[in-house]
Structure formats: C-alpha cells, structure tokens
C-alpha cells in the first residue's frame, strides 16, 4: 500500500466530517436565541422598601439594608465570591452560607474565601410613596 492510498478519504470518514460540520450549524442558530432570552430575563430590577425600615440589619432577597439612625446603607446580598445570597447574621458579622465568607455589617470583607466587599447599591428615597427605591444591577 503506497502513501497516496493510505491518505485516501473513504466514504465513511467523509460522511463523518460532513455530519460533524452540519452539527455546528444549529449551534450558530441557537446562540442568538439564548442571547435574546438571557437579555430578556436579565433586566435591572427596582426594589421598594419602606422608609421606616427597622434599625440594624434587614435581609431582602436581593439586598441587605443597614440602618443606623438616619444613615442607611444598602448593599447587594450576593457574596463577592460566587454570588450566593447572604441571609444570615452571626453576632456582628454577615456570613455567606455557601463557603463561609464573612463581612462586617457595612459590607466590608473580614475573611475569605471572598476577596472583595459586598457591592454598594444605589437608592433614592421617594417621599410620595414613603419608600426607598433600590436599583438591583443585573
């Protein structure tokens, strides 16, 4: 058998290559669909909480509010390590349930595995509705 014969493409291999190439076509069609779906589902969210929220830490699904007198701080409840929702205070610390990262009640990182503070969120007070309106990023 010479070299030319061994390199010859047989029918089965040819069909395999064509089949593989055709399998990529749906991928190109599916990705824009997924992208649109993600964009549709990932909109900025506005959360409303009452102006007379209690003193200290209050947990909401998307944010954590720390009120000290007239000073109000709002930060994301998503841990900066893997995005888990922080919903627990132990003493003066906020603890991530997933991997145990610890933050101060001001959202500053105290111990890892997370390396960054909790994200501070923008909010405004609406005197008409007597609510804080918090913008939750995507």
């Amino acid at each position, binding site marked *: 058998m010479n070299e030319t014969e061994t390199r010859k493409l047989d029918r089965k291999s040819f069909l395999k290559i064509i089949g593989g190439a055709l399998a990529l076509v749906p991928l190109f069609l599916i990705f824009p669909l997924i992208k649109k779906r*993600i964009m549709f*589902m990932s909109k900025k969210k506005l959360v409303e909480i009452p102006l007379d929220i209690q003193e200290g830490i209050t947990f909401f699904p998307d944010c954590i509010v720390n009120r000290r007198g007239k000073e109000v701080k709002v930060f994301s409840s998503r841990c900066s390590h893997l995005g888990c929702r922080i919903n627990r205070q132990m003493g003066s610390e906020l603890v991530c349930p997933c991997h145990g990262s610890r933050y101060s009640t001001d959202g500053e990182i105290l111990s890892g595995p997370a390396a960054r503070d909790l994200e501070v969120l923008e909010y405004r007070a609406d005197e008409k509705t007597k609510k804080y309106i918090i913008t939750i990023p995507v």
Partner: protein
Amino acid sequence: MAASFLRKIFEQWNRRLPTIGALDFAFFMVAVVSGVILVLPYDVTAPKDSLQVMMLTSQGGVFFRSLHYWSAQAFTVLALLHVIEFLLKKGEEKVSSGLWIRLSVGIPVILYVMLSGFILKGDAEAELARQIFGGLVEALPLLGDYLSFIFLGREGDLQIVYVHHAATATLFTWIIIIEHVKRFWPDLVSHIYAMGLSIVFSVIIPASLHSSGDPVVKGPWYFIGFQEILHWMTRPVLSVAVLVLFLSVFMGLPKINEKYRSRVKIFFSSMLFIYFIFTIIGWAFRGAGWQFQVPWQ
C-alpha cells in the same frame, strides 16, 4: 497492593451478587420509572410546596419520592464503584475510543443529573446548590453566562433544570448505558435486587426536605467535598479549570503509554481519596455559619 485488594473485593461481589454494572443499570431504571411517576404531582413553579403537599397528603407520594431518592443515590455510588472496577480491569483498552470519550462525559452528566434533581427540591439546600453552581459556571470566561443559562437557567426559574433532569441528561445517560452494556433493560435478577433494596430503604428512611428552621445548610453529599475545596479558593473558577483538565486526561487515558497510565490511575485514586477526606470534614465537622462542630453536636 490496594489495587489487588480492591480487585479481589470486586471479584467476590461479582461472583456472589449481580455484577456492579448490572446492579447500577437496574438502580438507574428504578430511578427513571419512579421519576416519571413524580412528574405528575410535581409543580416546577412551586417546587417545595408541591413536594410538601405530595408528601403530607399521600403515603404514595412519600414512597415514590423516597424510591426515586434512594435508587438515584445507589446508582451514583455504584457508578463510582463501577468506574474504579473498570479501570482496575483495564477496561479503557477494551472499548472503542469514541465510546470511552462518551463514557467519560457520562461521569459529569451523571453528577449533573443528580445535582439537578437536588436543585428541583426547591428547599434551602437546593437554593444553595443552585447558587454555588450558577456562580461557578457564570465565572467562566466568555461562555460562562451562556453555559449557566443552558444548564441551570435563571435564578428563581427551575424550568430548564427540570427539562434537563427529566429528559435531556437522563436520556443521554440511558443512551450511554445502552451503548456500554449493549442491552436496553437490566436483567431480571439485578432488577429484583435494585427494586428490593430501594423499597427497603424507602420504607425505613423516607426522603425528607430540608427543614426551614435548621440553620445548618449543606449541599448534596457528593459535592460537600467540593464545597470544602471552594471554601479555600479565592478564585473559584480555577477549580473548574482543574476539573476540565482532569476530565481531559481521563478521556485521553487509553492513549497514554501503559507505563505512565498506571501512574495516572494512582494519581486519580489519590485525588479521590483526598476528596473523600474533604467530604468527611464537611459532613461531620461543619456547623451553622461554617463554625467548627463535632458530629455528635
């Protein structure tokens, strides 16, 4: 020495009982059939509520959910044992390279089937597992957001996870099993063993949901070790890179020179042992808020 000891155990097992592979297939079928029954009362828009209603109002609901749970756990454990047994027998040399790659991909798919089932419980533990894996996949560069959506959907919406658990990933696993064992159904004796053991466990220890009053929230047992590893990693995306690397090496195992292949197998066994240690640490010594606790506390 450890390898020959394990080989002897597997040989004794296969001589006295249905083979590990056959039993594994039978447990898979029990999980599939009980899963199909659970589809009827399960509501993907209110997962925890629908499960609670099912379990509080019907003895059959408790039974079939437990049957699904225990058969799936047994399937996972036996799948792991079968992989070890297969490697000890140098099984990678006996299958085609295409099938070996599909079997290798089957390992993460099985874990995904298990994880998606865990997430579909909809309780605090399930939410935790979804957040960890969602965050982990989203952290991947370029395709992270896409992959997270494809496999886990969006937070608070379990539809995609449900479809994959009940159909896509289960079908893929079934097809791989059929191609591997060259039969559609498990044999009757294995089926009787699998059904009998699943029923006994379901009656003695019914599957429960996580109590909302329990401050200790952990992932499924097979991922507790991984959760411990992530606890020490500031850049969790590296863990995914390492797992992809391991899987790639596993896929390429038949191509590795036989002289080095046994070393690679020893390396994998060592990793599995270390993972087992991490699992024990996480399971026994982790309390609420990641505080240290002893098992009897």
